């Protein structure tokens, strides 16, 4: 296909553009998540992620100092508002240029920066763009400074704190390994088991084949929740209890209908002649399956393993039910849901970070499996 002469470039451009458009459309929310993972909860709930890279105008408040210098009959207090710890706490990335200021919370940006204004009782105040201020009051201010509200440019502020929190949480490494321990067999075992079954349903002749196919399709829709209790019960009664073995069984079972379904459909589409040729060559069903059907089904196997891997990787419910709840066997999702988010479920920064951290491995799996979704696997075999 790549060899075909004279492919139209206008068409190529259209393709490039439309793919670009779709990719962007798909990416925007993810970018939002990505950006958010570098912001803390307050920032997230204050401004949109798209504003994160830009300086935003933020209103803050502070208090002037109270150490007055007497100047005639007025007390003059000068200083920099950014010296006030409260004011500074609004600007973890360093304070920016002050745009406006005010003295009441209701009107925090009443006056433009640099303008001296009357604030009642004969007091005047000026706050300059760099944060310096001068407060003149006819009375001794005592030990309490003047409340100042101001609006200032806040430079973009990103933090890796979320990542630190997620990645360095106690036992996170352990959870990571646990997750792999759950997902890898829980991906491979159902594939193996299902591939055999799919082969039998696609290429072996036996009574009841049609019925079985129908049953498998039917089982696709069984809601997981129905099966949890009976399954766990079973595991308890045969002594598996809550353990890795149990969760492999569970994932194997839940992935099974889809695996059988996908693989059978793919295998049934293989050229009949190839299968027959191997039979004539003396291959038993077992050999035929192993040496011919399995290699030729690689794309379907890869597609399903991506799917199953994602499912087990992101699974929370099954892990909670079938694994013991001690730290030694917690998987990442449980760890994140219960230990990191917990009752602070509203911490969007952590959530975003967790989502991003847990996306990494599935993407690697996707990349490595994508190689198998090759073109023309069957080319040249039959005419």
């Amino acid at each position, binding site marked *: 296909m790549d060899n075909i002469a004279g492919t139209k470039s206008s068409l190529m451009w259209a393709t490039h553009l439309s793919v670009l458009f779709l990719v962007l459309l798909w990416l925007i929310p993810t970018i939002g998540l990505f950006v958010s993972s570098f912001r803390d909860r307050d920032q997230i709930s204050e401004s949109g992620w798209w504003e994160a890279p830009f300086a935003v105008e933020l209103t803050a408040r502070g208090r002037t100092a109270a150490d007055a210098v007497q100047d005639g009959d007025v007390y003059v207090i000068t200083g920099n508002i950014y010296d006030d710890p409260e004011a500074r706490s609004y600007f973890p990335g360093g304070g920016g240029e002050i745009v406006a200021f005010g003295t009441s919370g209701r009107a925090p940006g009443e006056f433009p920066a640099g303008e001296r204004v009357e604030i009642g009782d004969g007091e005047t105040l000026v706050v300059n763009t760099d944060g310096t201020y001068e407060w003149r009051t006819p009375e001794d201010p005592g030990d309490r400074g003047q409340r100042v509200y101001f609006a200032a440019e806040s430079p973009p502020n990103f933090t890796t704190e979320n990542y630190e929190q997620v990645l360095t949480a106690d036992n996170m490494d352990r959870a990571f390994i646990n997750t792999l321990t759950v997902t890898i067999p829980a991906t491979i075992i159902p594939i193996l088991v299902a591939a055999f079954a799919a082969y039998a349903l696609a290429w072996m002749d036996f009574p009841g084949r049609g019925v079985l196919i129908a049953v498998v399709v039917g089982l696709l829709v069984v809601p997981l929740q129905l099966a949890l209790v009976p399954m766990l019960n079973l595991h308890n009664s045969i002594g598996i209890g809550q353990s890795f073995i149990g969760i492999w069984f569970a994932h194997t079972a839940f992935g099974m209908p889809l695996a059988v379904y996908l693989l059978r459909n793919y295998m049934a589409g293989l050229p009949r002649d190839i299968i027959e040729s191997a039979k004539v060559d003396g291959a038993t069903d077992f050999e035929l399956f192993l040496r011919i059907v399995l290699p030729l089904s690689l794309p379907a196997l890869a597609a399903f393993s991506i799917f199953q891997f994602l499912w087990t990787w992101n699974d929370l419910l099954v892990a909670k039910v079938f694994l013991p*709840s001690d730290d030694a066997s917690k998987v990442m999702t449980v760890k994140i849901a219960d230990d990191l988010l917990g009752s602070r479920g509203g911490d969007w920064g952590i959530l975003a970070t967790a989502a991003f951290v847990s996306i990494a491995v599935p993407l690697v799996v996707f990349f490595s499996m994508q190689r198998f979704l090759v073109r023309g696997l069957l080319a040249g075999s039959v005419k």
Partner: protein
Amino acid sequence: QDLVFEKGEGAFSWDSLEEFASNNDFSGESIDITGPWTGADAELVNSVIAYFEDATGASVNYSGSDSFEQDIVISTEANSAPNIAVFPQPGLLSDLASRGAVTPLEDETAEWIRENYAAGDSWVDLATFEGEGGEDRLFAFPYKIDVKSLVWYVPEQFEELGLEVPETYEELKELTQTIADEGETPWCIGLGSGAATGWPATDWVEDLMLRTVSPEQYDAWVSNELDFSSEEVVNAIGEYGWFLQDGYVSGGREAAATTDFRDSPSGLFQFPPECYMHKQATFIPTFFPEGTVVGEDVDFFYFPAPESGDLGQPVLGGGTMFAITEDSEATRGFIDFLQTPLAHEIWAAQGGLLTPHTGISQDVFPSDSQRALNDILLNATTFRFDASDLMPGEIGAGAFWTQMVEFTTGSQDAQATGEAIQSRWDALQN
């Protein structure tokens, strides 16, 4: 785990621990506890547990889960229940108790609660259910109580507008009107909570019930002897509606229905403020902006009772209950441990725990405001548990929530809301 407070130091009742330690030795035994606390809360409960482990030699494995209610049902049905389950809702507990999944506590425990907890009877009542056999038994030990009848505000903002903390319900309404007249928005309300969206509204209704009807009627309401569609309940819902009027709620009532409850208090801290008051339980400071100091930057007042009538100072609260789902000696020992003042003090000293335990040292609270909160609990003339937590799940964690959301957005009136919930309840009973 390390002990957070050195033994023997501070205002803690160390002797209660020593006495407990000398009577209990569970070396080599282990108990599993599951509960709803996760994250920081899980660390706190673990810090309490550490003292139990230290005293008895038992090992305790606490695991918290965001989906505790689902998990506990599955594990009890599948016979793999932990030793102790910490129920945030008595409703579920009573369900499990009636199926025999929970082991009743000894009668002495009930006696102990009566004597040592403020408003002890109501606590015993709360944790007493019909067991499998049909007779009423105490099934759980209440520990860590939330007070819900609180309104949060920023004193400085009140100061600026010259506002006073209201003493009565009538004043609260006046205050609301005053703020609105100033051109400001009095309230921040947020019902959003994912699948549980709507529950903050139920707290409003419950608090208003306590302020409009007698505690007995409240109890009748909980058990649905008083219909949801009754005049009383509809009235309470209507009262809540009063606060939703145009101009009273930041963003308007529709926004209130979807704003996340964790985000809604942030309006208090904006300049200019988006709102001046926020009604929420004791746990909400966790969600205030980082660095906010309760008592300085933000404060609370008791959601006041009406001047008229003689309802006293009713307090709405919630709390968690420790119940035995898989009996063992060490498990019993743990329940005993919860009776020591120290078990309460350790957590209280780190903030976040209120307790009706009258025997604890008041000095352990980390701040005055914490102590003040606990005082609300200790001084309550009436304490009532969150009604929605007591109702059957389909109502208390279902229809009540969703219908309140409908009401909040204004798509149906109070009467219709009450009727809709009631009809779900009726459907339940056949």
